[in-house]
């Protein structure tokens, strides 16, 4: 719920920079090691936007896999089933380079009157 609130706060802050528009969709990037359950985040997000002026705001979630870089051969690869061995040279000397993201990626805004679906729509 804290995360959902933070996303919403960020949307409200950003909207201050785009007068005459309303937000349609906010995109977040979540790493698989970020300890965020997508469904729980969606549920909380819907709960706090329901019947508010942001009731029509859609949440887009992009899941980022855990990626490692091999210290020996330099290859970047996706870690599956916690197997952090380099698929190229089989070295175990690999370090995590991504996978714990919890980031705001984008916000889609629409000018008032540009579409028939208004900001108050709950669809």
């Amino acid at each position, binding site marked *: 719920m*804290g995360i959902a609130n933070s996303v919403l706060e960020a949307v409200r802050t950003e909207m201050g920079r785009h007068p005459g*528009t309303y937000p349609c969709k906010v995109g977040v990037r979540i790493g698989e*090691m970020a*300890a965020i359950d997508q469904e729980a985040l969606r549920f909380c997000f819907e709960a706090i936007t329901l019947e508010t002026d942001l009731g029509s705001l859609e949440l887009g979630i992009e899941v980022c896999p855990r990626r490692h870089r091999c210290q020996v051969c330099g290859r970047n690869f996706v870690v599956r089933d916690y197997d952090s061995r380099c698929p190229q040279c089989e070295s175990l000397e690999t370090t995590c380079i991504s996978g714990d993201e*919890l980031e*705001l990626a*984008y916000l889609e805004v629409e000018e008032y009157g540009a579409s028939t679906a208004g900001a108050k729509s709950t669809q």
Partner: protein
Amino acid sequence: MERVRLERKVLSENDRIAAELRARFQEHGILCLNLISSPGSGKTSLLERTLETLPRHDHVAVLTGDIQTENDANRLKRFHFPVKQITTGGTCHLDARMIERHLADWCLEDLDLLLIENVGNLVCPASYDLGEAAKVVVLSITEGEDKPLKYPSIFFKSDLLVLNKIDLLPYVPFDIDAAADNARKVHPGMEIVKVSCLTGNGLQEWMKWLERRRRAHKPLVQETAS
């Protein structure tokens, strides 16, 4: 329709406060540790054992988080170090602002070590930076050896795993080597100590780790101060 790129952390406000706290801890030479576990794994017991071992004149303070009650602070106050309870009133984790607020009337110059006991939860505390130098995750052997695989984030982000309640090993079907392997699958090279806060077994390993981190933290501070 216009798409605006945001490209910032969701918890950027928390991270900003945490970065300020980290700078203050650094400035005053304070090692701050964030202890995380499920409820009942033994964070408070580990702190009790730690405080009872440390010399009375040591500059140590504890912030302990729970959803309700002052019980933990009351347990820890008998060791005569400064202790403050943070009751979150429903929130399942501590955040940087709570730490900032509860440190407000403590004199940071008087501290060398700040131990933060997070709310019992293996999930959300992993997302909230408190300005700590390291996270320490406590796992008790009654919880099952696959916890690191089920809750990878906190094991991935913690520097040390404290496996607690090893006195119960003869009575529960817990494979301690599998637990260590699972933790190192998620976090290769992770440091692990095995303790019993009840019998005191293994606690010297934890105290050695703590002492090593305190020593490693100090010269850094003196260098930046000079």
